């Protein structure tokens, strides 16, 4: 059973040009996401996990710049490099084939528009022809075939950019189109298990609780049935019982829709309970990638091992990793973890270990287990 790789990030390099210097945020990141799996991206603050996910959508804010590497996206039959896409291709990709949800749901919802308006906006951007066709069909069923409204829709379908269309579409009601959008919105709200979706569709973001807002954001992300969903710490700010509900929802999405999900978090418990595979990041590099059972039982990279040991256990005190994360401005040579690693070798100081497959489907960047030269 060979699963398709939907997203493949190869040797991605991203720099941030700040007043203080050039921050080498990502230094050759390798990630691949397969169809229908949940990949957990684990790392501390500053490891580069958010920057990686933003790069996939080409949303890295200035002063950040993508300096090298490639991000291959599986579209239909061939693979396209996201970094080479032009603006219109990117626009049709975002929200449509890849969607993203963020940490603070209410920061990403416009407070002056209702839920219906916001999810509807996403749908109208990407699925307009389909919605227009449905609207025309509804009108025809109700014997309103020849009305101005129906003709408006037909015009918008046939020649959306012509002057006549753009001028005339300002007149006449768009009630049917709005009703179609509302139907679809309620459908997607139901799919994220929001109770009473008709009422929620008319609510404003400040009326929603944290968990509901996150579900709405997930619904917005799913509005156009994307193949890939990137979730950047969506449950970090939520209560633990609400987090359990959202995690259940994510599992449901994987089961019912066969979504591929890149789930970013720093909580190893969430990773253990939710993800199929895990990628561990440190200081701008991916240091280990493996199946979740494999990583918890056989961590190869010393950082992964240290992370697992630092999980609090009652009666055993708190184990911490000595030292601090190195600065990414003028980063140290060789492996970036070497100053905190209890197993550091001499070669670790000079040459960065390559990210290779050390065991079956278990990748790591470390000289300890024979990644040398």
């Amino acid at each position, binding site marked *: 059973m060979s699963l398709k790789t939907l997203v493949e990030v190869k040797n991605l390099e991203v720099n941030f040009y*700040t*007043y*203080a210097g050039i921050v080498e945020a990502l230094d050759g990141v390798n990630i691949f996401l397969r169809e229908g799996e949940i990949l957990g991206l684990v790392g501390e603050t500053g490891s580069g996990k958010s920057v990686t996910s933003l790069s996939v959508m080409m949303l890295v804010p200035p*002063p950040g710049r993508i300096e090298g590497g490639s991000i291959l996206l599986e579209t239909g039959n061939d693979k396209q490099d996201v970094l080479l896409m032009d603006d219109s291709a990117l626009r049709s990709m975002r929200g449509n084939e890849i969607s993203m949800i963020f940490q603070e749901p209410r920061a990403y919802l416009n407070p002056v528009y209702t839920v219906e308006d916001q999810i509807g906006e996403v749908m109208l951007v990407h699925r307009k022809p389909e919605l227009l066709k449905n609207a025309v069909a509804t009108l025809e069923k109700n014997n309103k075939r020849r009305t101005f409204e129906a003709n408006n829709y037909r015009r918008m379908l046939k020649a959306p950019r012509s002057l006549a269309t753009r001028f005339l579409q300002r007149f006449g009601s768009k009630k049917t189109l709005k009703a179609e959008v509302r139907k679809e919105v309620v459908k997607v709200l139901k799919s994220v298990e929001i109770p009473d979706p008709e009422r929620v569709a008319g609510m404003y973001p400040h009326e929603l609780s944290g968990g509901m807002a996150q579900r709405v954001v997930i619904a917005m992300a799913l509005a156009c049935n994307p193949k890939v969903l990137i979730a950047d710490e969506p449950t970090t700010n939520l209560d633990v019982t609400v987090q359990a509900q959202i995690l259940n929802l994510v599992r449901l999405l994987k089961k019912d829709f066969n979504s591929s999900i890149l789930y970013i978090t720093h909580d190893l418990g969430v990773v253990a309970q939710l993800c199929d595979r895990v990628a561990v990041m440190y200081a701008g590099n991916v240091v280990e990638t493996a199946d979740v059972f494999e990583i918890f039982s056989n961590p190869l990279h010393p950082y992964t091992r240290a992370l697992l040991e630092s999980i609090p256990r009652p009666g055993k005190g708190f184990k911490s990793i000595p030292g601090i994360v190195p600065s990414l401005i003028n980063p140290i040579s060789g492996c970036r973890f070497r100053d905190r690693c209890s197993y550091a070798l001499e070669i670790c100081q000079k040459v960065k270990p390559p990210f290779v497959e050390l065991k079956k489907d278990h990748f790591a960047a470390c000289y300890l287990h024979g990644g040398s030269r």
Partner: protein
Amino acid sequence: MRPRVKEWKFMLMRIRQNSLALAGLVIILAFVCIAVLAPVLAPPNPADAFKIPRDMEINVLTPNPTPPTMRHIFGTTDQQYDLYYACIWGTITAFRTGLTVVGVSLIIGLLMGTVAAYYGGLLDEALMRFTDIIIAFPGLVLAMALVIAFPATVPINISMIALIIFILAMLMLLAFHPSRKLLLVVWGLLLLSILSMFYFPVSFQIPLSRLDKVLIAITLVGWPGYTRVIRGEVLRVKNEDFVEASKASGSSDFGIVVRHIWPNTVYPLLIVATLDIGSIVLSAAALSFLGIGASPDYADWGQIIQRSSPWINRPTELVANFHTFVIPGIFITLFVMGWNLLGDALRDVLDPTLRRR
């Protein structure tokens, strides 16, 4: 290196990088030099430095303005008042106008805004409604009325001064050791001072020149702007964690305001203040031009332009005597522009969201 020095160096670097800001700074520094070196650049009039000298010799020949010559570098205006002297000493007047008005407005606004925002509730409502009433006053009209109605001198009672100083001292003491008894004492003293005003003889009179009256008028209508700015900022800072932490450490209200709230709220005020200096000078110049500002031979830019008002609607004379208003006009424009650029620069530099990028 000491971190505060580092902060200033960072700010200076930001200013240096912004060329408009640099231009503003240069302009203001140039004006400061002119103001400081005024006695050197234009030897002061022995009677009163701010009285513009008239060239009586040429005046005998003609009272009309003469264009710039070696004798009068910028020329003279009607009645042979020397433009050069007026512009140089007018710089000092401009600084004095701008700084005193803004300074006093700042202090009033700071105190009112902080008290209103920090204590909230009814006090806030009362102070803010009072501020709203003041905003409703038309500034220029009030200035005109005050200039006409204010007496030439203001009587001051020496005992009143003493009592007011005493009360201020008690207020400071109150802030450190709040107690009901002290509050009663302060109220009592206040009442006493108001009553004593009528009892004791007048000790001396403070003379108010016309310019002073104009400054008082502008101050009286100018302080609400600062009050609102400070109130907004204090409301924002009041709810921060570190203010609550300071309260948990046992700080008094006064301590919290002085140590935490003011250092964090004063920056937007500085920006408003620098922008205001320019506009205040402009307003004062406008008032002088209308004839209700400084006295006729006072060294003030607006005043000297006022002398060219007779030929405003006579095109030929206007062109012939353009030096009488263009040169002071340039001074005013540069001064206001300098302060505006500096204010914009400060806004960019002190914006906390842009600080550490």
